[in-house]
C-alpha cells in the first residue's frame, strides 16, 4: 500500500490562506468605492460644466448689469455708501464672470462605458496606495491613483490600461518573504484598506449632500417628468437681464436729460 506523504498545513498557513482571501475581498470593495467616488466626481464636474454654461453665464451677465447700474449711480452722487455698493457689485460681477469662464465650464458630458468602469476597478485594485509595500511604493501608487482618477474622468481607457500595464510590469510579489512576514503585511493591509473604505464613504456622503449634488438631483428628477429646470431658470434670468438693461438705459437717458 503506497504511502502518500500528506503534508498537513500548519495553522499559520491556514490563516495565511484565509487572510489572502480576505484581502482580495477588501481590495475589491475598496476598488468599488474608488469607482463610485470617481464616478460621482466626474458626474458632478460634468453637471457643473453644463450648469455654468447654461445658467452661470446668465448670472454673470445679470451681475454685470447690476455692477454697471451701481457704478452709474455711484458716479451721480457723492454718497460713500453708493460707492461702496458699486465696488461690491463689481467684485461680484468679476467673481461670476471668472467662475463661468474658467476651466470648470468646459467639462463635457460624462457617460462611462462598462469597459471603462471594469478597467478602473482593475487599476484601483492593483495600484491602490493601501497595498503598498513601503513608502517609496506608496508614493508612486498615490501618483498613479491620481492619474487613474483623471483618466477616468476623461473617459481615457488607453491611459488607464497604460497605468495598469506599467505597474504590473514593474512590481511583483516579494521574494522569500516568509509566512510570518506575509501574514503581518496582509493583516496591516486589510486594516489600512478598511480604514480607507470608511474615509471614502465619508467623502461620498459629503459630495452627495452638497449643493451641487442636490441641484443635480432636482434637475434629474424634473427631467424624468419632462421638465427642464435649468431652461426654466435661464428663461427667468433672461427676463431679469432684460429688465436691468432697461433700467440702465433709462438711467442713462435721465443723466443725459440733466446734462442738457
Amino acid at each position, binding site marked *: 500500500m503506497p504511502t502518500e506523504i500528506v503534508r498537513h498545513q500548519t495553522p499559520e498557513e491556514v490563516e495565511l490562506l484565509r487572510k489572502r482571501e480576505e484581502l482580495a475581498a477588501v481590495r475589491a470593495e475598496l476598488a468599488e468605492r474608488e469607482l463610485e467616488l470617481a464616478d460621482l466626481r466626474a458626474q458632478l464636474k460634468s453637471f457643473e460644466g453644463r*450648469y*455654468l454654461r447654461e445658467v452661470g453665464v446668465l448670472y*454673470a451677465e445679470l451681475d454685470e448689469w447690476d455692477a454697471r447700474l451701481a457704478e452709474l449711480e455711484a458716479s451721480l452722487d457723492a454718497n460713500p455708501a453708493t460707492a461702496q455698493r458699486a465696488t461690491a457689485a463689481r467684485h461680484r460681477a*468679476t467673481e*461670476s464672470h471668472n467662475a463661468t469662464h474658467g476651466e470648470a465650464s468646459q467639462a463635457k458630458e460624462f457617460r462611462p462605458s462598462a469597459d471603462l468602469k471594469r478597467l478602473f476597478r482593475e487599476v484601483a485594485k492593483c495600484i491602490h496606495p493601501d497595498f503598498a509595500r513601503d513608502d517609496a511604493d506608496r508614493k508612486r501608487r498615490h501618483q498613479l491613483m491620481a492619474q487613474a482618477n483623471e483618466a477616468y474622468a476623461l473617459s481615457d481607457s488607453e491611459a488607464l490600461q497604460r497605468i495598469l500595464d506599467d505597474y504590473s510590469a514593474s512590481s511583483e510579489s516579494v521574494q522569500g518573504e516568509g509566512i510570518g512576514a506575509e501574514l503581518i503585511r496582509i493583516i496591516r493591509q486589510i486594516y489600512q484598506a478598511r480604514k480607507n473604505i470608511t474615509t471614502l464613504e465619508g467623502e461620498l456622503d459629503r459630495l452627495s449632500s452638497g449643493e451641487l449634488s442636490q441641484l443635480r438631483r432636482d434637475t434629474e428628477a424634473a427631467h424624468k417628468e419632462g421638465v427642464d*429646470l435649468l431652461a426654466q*431658470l435661464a428663461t427667468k*434670468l433672461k427676463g431679469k437681464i432684460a429688465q436691468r438693461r432697461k433700467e440702465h438705459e433709462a438711467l442713462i437717458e435721465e443723466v443725459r436729460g440733466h446734462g442738457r
Partner: protein
Amino acid sequence: MADEFALQRADSPARTLMVTGNRAGLIERGRKDLLNLTSTALYDKGEAFFSADGVPQDYTQAAFWFRKSADQGNAYAQERLGLMYSVGWGVPENDVESANWYRQAAEQGLARAQYRLGDYYLYGIGVPKDPVGAIGWELRAAEQGYKSAQRWLGIVYLKGIGVPSDPQEAYFWSYIAYELHTAENGSVLANSAARKRDKAASFLTDEELTQTQERAKHWLASHRINAGD
C-alpha cells in the same frame, strides 16, 4: 455678450482687485432661485383653485397646492394657508395652525401676514395674548406701507386697546393711512382713517399736532409705497 463685457472690464479699476471665480456662490443662487420658481408655480396652482381662475373653485385643492408651496417656503402660500385655517376653508378650522402659517409668512416680511399676526397677538388668537408683540408686527407691516396695519395702529393707539392710549401715534398713522388711501381713491377707507385722525387731533396740543404732521409728511416723502391695502 459676455466677452463684450470683458473688453470693458480691462479698463476698469476693479481689474486691480484680485478676484477669483465664485462657482459655489453661483450654484447656491441657482438652487435658491429654482426653489422659488417651483414654489411659485405651486402657489399659482393653488391660487387658481382659490379664486376660480380657469377652474371651478375648490378650497380643498387650493389648500393642497398652497401646502406644497408653503412647505417650500413660499410666503404667499403660507399667508393663504393662515387665512384658510382661520376660517376653515378646505381645511379644518384651527387658530393655532393659522397663527403658525401667518408667522412663517410674517417672518419672511409679508405685510399682510404681519398685519394678521399682530391682530392675533392683540386678542390672543392661536397665540398667547401679547399686545406689545402685536404692536411690533403691525409696525413692521405699517412701515412697509400696509394701510390696514396703519389704520389698525390708529385705532389701537386712539382707544388704548391692550396698550396705553397715545393720540400722537394714533394721529401719525391715521394721517399716513388717509394720505395713502386718498392717493388711491379709496374713499370709504380714507374716510375711516380721516375720522380717526381728526379724533386723535382733538387730544393734541397745537405744537404736538404740527410736530406729528411734520413727522408724517417726512415719512410719506421718504417711503415709496406699494404694498396693497
